């Protein structure tokens, strides 16, 4: 032991309570603004394309993360795609068990090189399989706010 003195009574230990009071407001950025506005107003998914790296970024970026080229080639991608992975989440943000577990999907939209992370619904877990076709279900236009939550969830393409 390197410390000469030790606390040896539980009553003498003392936690001091506190927090990091952080409230933040994040702009969605230059690329995000165009992507989310288009999703809100037209219900369409846009991506940006890097020809050199053969990447179509969805959500889009104003730069290619692989070569750092400035990207301004915007392309439309599909609202359906392939289920790359999924998981059933049983715990909430507070670490407590959720009453209703949530299905989460990783979806590569048609024409995109990258994936969207979102919720999944409309299918029993037993029928889920990686590689299946899924489509985005958007909120009604009037309820859309220009956020990723304008997508309600993904659902199997055939239902």
């Amino acid at each position: 032991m390197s410390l000469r003195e030790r606390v040896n009574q539980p009553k003498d230990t003392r936690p001091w309570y506190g927090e990091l009071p952080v409230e933040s407001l994040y702009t969605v950025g230059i690329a995000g603004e165009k992507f989310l506005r288009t999703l809100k107003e037209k219900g369409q998914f846009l991506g940006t394309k890097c020809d050199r790296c053969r990447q179509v970024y969805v959500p889009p970026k104003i730069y290619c993360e692989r070569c750092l080229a400035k990207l301004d080639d915007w392309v439309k991608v599909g609202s359906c795609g392939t289920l790359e992975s999924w998981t059933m989440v049983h715990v909430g943000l507070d670490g407590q068990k959720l009453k209703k577990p949530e299905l989460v999907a990783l979806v590569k939209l048609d024409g995109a090189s990258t994936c969207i992370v979102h919720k999944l619904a409309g299918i029993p877990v037993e029928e889920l399989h990686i590689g299946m076709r899924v489509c985005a279900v958007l909120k009604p236009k009037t309820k859309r706010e220009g956020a990723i939550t304008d997508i309600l969830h993904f659902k199997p393409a055939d239902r």
Partner: protein
Amino acid sequence: MRAKAGVKQTPEIQYAGTGLSSKDFKEGKILCTRWTADAKYAWDAGIAIGKYLAGFKAGKILGVRCIKCGRTMVPPRAFCEWCFKTVDSWVQLRNTGIVNTFSLCYVTWDVKRVKKPEISAVIEIDGASKGMGIMHLLGEVDPNKVRIGMKVKAIWKPAAEREGAITDIKYWKPY
């Protein structure tokens, strides 16, 4: 790729960066998301600060002493940072001190304007080595009369209200 002459910092260069005003947000011209962090902690006070806090509850200011460098230190610590060894003994310091420096602050920590300034100070505690101060507040004093070198004493909360915290001392006032 040899760039003989560098790029001059002339007005023709277009620098990126789109400045927004708070109006842009209020009027919903800009999309944004919000988040309130759920970041709560229970930091273990440990040996030195635990005893320091217990001292406050008892109405005492405690320091520690290192016999190698001869310093009596406050706030207390389990080790001497200069000698890199454990400290040797606990010392009860006096309830008086000297203003090492101060400020008259007209805004609160979350940037709200106040009329009557909060007077923050570093107070060198009597009984500790010279220059050993703690941060605290001054009270019962005309802000215009506060001076570096001023003698002050601790004004404690009543014993029943003390909880073992730095705020068990309400403030320091000149004597």
